[in-house]
């Protein structure tokens, strides 16, 4: 391993600009002649729009234009799309209503986009928006699943009778029912997976600009996947063909899924820039982000686990209701289906699984992928079930897991996935040792002596990452392929630019990707630049989500580097006057087998361009190659997290005493960055378990629409984390990478709740386990000296 190669904890290349305030985020961009957009949003969860009177707004000083749904319809701008087709149990397609960028006759959630005011300044746009008079006919609202599914519920979309989007299933129902019929024990749980607001610290923003000279648009946007944004805006929304639309996603301040999607605001900014003849900028404020960024989770699940002889799991059955909000966001339909149910086997050998998922429209913000997307929901179901089952069987929860682990690979689950590699026992063993599980009894006794409750909870999670083989996801309803692209440009002096379709919004690709190149070509890491986030530079790509940038994005780079090496060897053969088959390349040097003839990488790069040593007819000059990598399987990161909590039954304030995470991410390129991803993921998972919840009242008003009401985890709510790794290389990509971006958020919630319920001695607690809930749950629970 070199100091900057694969496996080295290289300090990040991007950080100089961030620590000096020189990052360039979308809101930092101002274009000449720029105007500002402010959206008029619905204050009602459900209403017909009888009329919009913009005359007072238009008379306000500085206001340039007020645009409504009628204007966008007149210009034949298409609606927003959901890119994943789900089919009902009877084979019919899901029932999706229209999703206009500006409301057309009806609003369906608080924050829905009614009109946009464009003005010389943001203040004028904001003032103008207050003067837009909208005549609403307020309708009854259905703010949650229970209200939406009731007979006589308000009808949100004509296309979806009874607000039912789809009823979908996966697995063998008959086999699963048979397993339950012969079970020795059945564990049952009712689970609410609480609704979350993603909250990247950078609010979304967009600048749309139209150039009359070239009849082309540029959109600067806070996107995790600028090429997908361009594809959707071109092919579906129809704003401009792709060669007339450049999408730039510069530094992006976190995404966590919420910046995958193509929203109304950037659509309107691009469209309006031609309409008003000025660049149009919109920057979200935090309350708008709470109202309109796609939320995450929001499942209600009835889950059952069937246990047979020898404490072996013989079946798992779930019925999940998923809230998709008022409109189907870009990938909304895939989250509670193919990103959820295929993970219900967990790390366990379960012969029969059946999942039924019903999805509902409600008068709330759209719900879509949020860090983990479906996999945290599945893991919470599985890891709560196995924990509770072990307690009911009076078994050590770790031993119950051990008894049911998948132990041979490849392992075909009954729900699509074929696990390719793993060693779940190794992660569990290492986590128990690192955590000092043996010392838990003494710690519990010490807590009890102080009148405090202490509990320990496991989470043995698995996830499917490296999203994803294009043909496979296509067969499941995806509207796109999920390969990744890379282009390697070697400059004549031997420096290298990597153009990647992946997008970094905190993940550190400028460093990690450069480590791969430095390692492979034997050149200093400072001689490598990573170019991403601009559709005019990178031809096409699928972006960053689903922990895919390492496994898929870097594999594309690896494949392009294969081609670079092959071409460079041909050049080297001419330069070194040897046969191509005798050329070897190692540590940045080309050598001729059995001789002392050698040339460094820079010399060969220069010769590729000056092209004096070979004929251009037999070998093309230049050194630039590209590759598209389409994976053959998902990757399967897995691991064990152990959470230990202590709280006083008198106040219910849960303190995480220690956290141990042992993850198997396959091969690790930069351990510093990977550990950072684990820390951040755990924090978000702890946030879900203890602090966060997006709450609507019965009328559909979001009552948690600022940081004064929605509890974001602070530094003093969280512990330091004890992080370790085990490694089984991933066999389905050339680098052996599995992915690490979502693991913490997937693993953490059940670990926390398992720890709290262990301390309580009963299972009656829901997320977020706030002090009030824990205090209520702890009434009558007496701290015991013994650890069972």
């Amino acid at each position, binding site marked *: 391993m070199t100091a900057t190669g694969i496996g080295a904890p290289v*300090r*990040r290349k*991007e*950080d*100089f*600009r*961030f*620590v*000096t*305030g*020189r*990052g*360039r*985020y979308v*809101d*930092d961009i*101002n274009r000449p002649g720029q105007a500002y957009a402010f959206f008029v949003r619905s204050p009602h969860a459900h209403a017909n729009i009888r009329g919009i009177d913009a005359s007072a707004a238009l008379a306000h000083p500085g206001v340039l234009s007020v645009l409504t749904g009628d204007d966008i319809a007149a210009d034949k701008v298409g609606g927003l799309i959901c890119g994943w087709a789900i089919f009902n149990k009877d084979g019919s397609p899901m029932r999706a209503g229209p999703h206009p960028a500006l409301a057309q006759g009806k609003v369906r959630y608080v924050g829905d986009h009614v009109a946009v005011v464009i003005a010389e300044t943001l*203040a004028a746009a904001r003032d103008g928006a207050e003067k837009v008079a909208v005549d609403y006919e307020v309708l009854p609202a259905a703010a949650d699943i229970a209200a939406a599914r009731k007979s006589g519920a308000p009808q949100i979309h004509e296309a979806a009778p009874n607000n039912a989007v789809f009823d979908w299933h996966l697995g063998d129902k008959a086999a699963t029912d048979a397993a339950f019929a012969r079970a020795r024990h059945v564990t049952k749980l009712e689970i609410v997976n609480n609704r979350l607001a993603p*909250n*990247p*610290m*950078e*609010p979304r923003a967009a600048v749309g600009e139209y150039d009359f000279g070239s009849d082309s648009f540029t959109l600067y946007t806070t996107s995790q996947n600028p090429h997908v944004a361009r594809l959707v805006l071109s092919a579906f929304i129809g704003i401009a063909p792709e060669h007339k639309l450049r999408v730039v996603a510069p*530094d*992006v*301040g*976190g995404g*966590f899924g919420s910046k995958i999607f193509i929203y109304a605001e950037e659509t309107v900014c691009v469209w309006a820039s031609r309409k008003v003849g000025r660049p149009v900028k919109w*920057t979200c*404020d*935090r*309350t708008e982000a709470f109202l309109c960024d796609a939320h995450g989770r929001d499942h209600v699940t009835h889950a059952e686990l069937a246990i047979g002889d020898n404490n072996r799991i013989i079946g798992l059955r779930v019925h999940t209701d998923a809230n998709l909000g008022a409109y189907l966001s870009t990938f909304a339909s895939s989250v509670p289906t193919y990103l959820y149910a295929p993970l219900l086997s967990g790390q366990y050998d379960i012969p029969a699984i059946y999942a039924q998922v019903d999805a509902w429209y409600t008068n709330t913000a759209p719900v879509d992928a949020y860090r983990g997307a479906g996999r945290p929901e599945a893991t919470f179901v599985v890891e709560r079930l196995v924990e509770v089952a072990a307690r009911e069987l009076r078994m050590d929860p770790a031993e119950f897991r051990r008894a049911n682990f998948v132990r041979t690979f490849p392992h075909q689950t009954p729900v699509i996935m074929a696990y390719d590699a793993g060693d779940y026992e190794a992660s569990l063993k290492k986590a128990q040792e690192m955590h000092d599980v043996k010392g838990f009894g003494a710690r519990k006794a010490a807590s009890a002596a102080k009148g405090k409750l202490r509990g320990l909870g496991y989470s043995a999670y698995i996830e499917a990452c490296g999203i994803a083989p294009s043909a496979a996801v296509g067969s499941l309803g995806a509207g796109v392929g999920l390969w990744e692209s890379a282009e390697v440009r070697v400059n004549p002096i031997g420096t290298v630019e990597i153009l990647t379709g992946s997008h970094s*919004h*905190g*993940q*550190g690709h400028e460093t990690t990707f450069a480590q791969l190149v430095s390692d492979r070509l034997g050149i200093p890491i400072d001689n490598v630049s990573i170019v991403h986030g601009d559709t005019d530079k990178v031809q096409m790509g699928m972006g960053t989500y689903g922990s895919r940038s390492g496994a898929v994005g870097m594999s594309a780079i690896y494949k392009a580097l294969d081609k670079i090496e092959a071409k460079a060897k041909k050049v080297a053969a001419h330069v070194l006057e040897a046969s191509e088959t005798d050329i070897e390349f190692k540590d940045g040097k080309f050598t001729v087998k059995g001789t002392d003839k050698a040339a460094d990488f820079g010399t060969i790069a220069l010769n590729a361009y000056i092209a004096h040593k070979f004929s251009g007819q037999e070998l093309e000059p230049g050194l630039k190659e590209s590759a598209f990598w389409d994976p053959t399987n998902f990757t399967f990161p897995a691991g064990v997290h152990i959470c230990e909590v202590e709280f006083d039954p008198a106040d219910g304030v849960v303190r995480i005493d220690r956290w141990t995470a042992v993850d198997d991410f396959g091969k690790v390129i930069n351990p*510093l*960055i990977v*550990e*950072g991803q684990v*820390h*951040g*993921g*755990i*924090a*978000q998972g702890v946030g879900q378990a203890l602090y966060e919840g997006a709450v609507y009242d019965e009328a559909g008003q979001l009552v948690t629409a*600022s*940081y*004064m009401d929605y509890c*974001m985890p*602070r*530094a*003093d709510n*969280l512990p*330091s*984390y004890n992080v370790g790794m085990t490694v089984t290389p991933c066999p389905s990509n050339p680098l052996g990478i599995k992915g690490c971006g979502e693991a*913490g958020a997937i693993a953490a919630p059940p670990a926390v709740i398992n720890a709290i319920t262990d301390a309580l001695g009963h299972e009656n607690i829901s997320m977020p386990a706030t002090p009030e809930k824990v205090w209520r749950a702890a009434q009558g629970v007496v701290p015991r000296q013994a650890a069972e």
Partner: protein
Amino acid sequence: MAKVSMVVNGKPVSGEVEPRTLLVHFLRETLRLTGTHVGCDTSQCGACVVHVDGAAIKSCTTLAVSCEGAHVTTIEGLAQGDRLHPMQEAFRDNHGLQCGFCTPGMIMTAVDMVNRKGNRLDETTIRHELEGNICRCTGYHNIVKAVAAGAANMPAKAAAE
């Protein structure tokens, strides 16, 4: 419109602003110092922290005109050319940032913490003092390490300004 003058990062500046203009917008839009960020509008997240007359404040809830005559330091004023401030260096060394959006506010808060609490900061103190700064990426683990390291590396009786 109101005229406002102040000293920002050692340089006298002035501008004509609407009286309701917030300090953060004066810094970002009038002076184009875009390192100071707006993350929440309600002074919880701390992405907008700058120093006014030596104390950390949230510039998203401070009127620009209320800083008339003040000395303001932003993240852009911390390094000496290419030489990073010890706290900036510590964030880089300890991977104390991911997306970078909260980072300027975190660093300005951390420097202020050292100015008030000294160079030896334990984990409990750091975590408590960071309650007004939210990070969504790092889980705070490496931020806490960075603040401790940066504090230790700042000159004793440090004055960042």
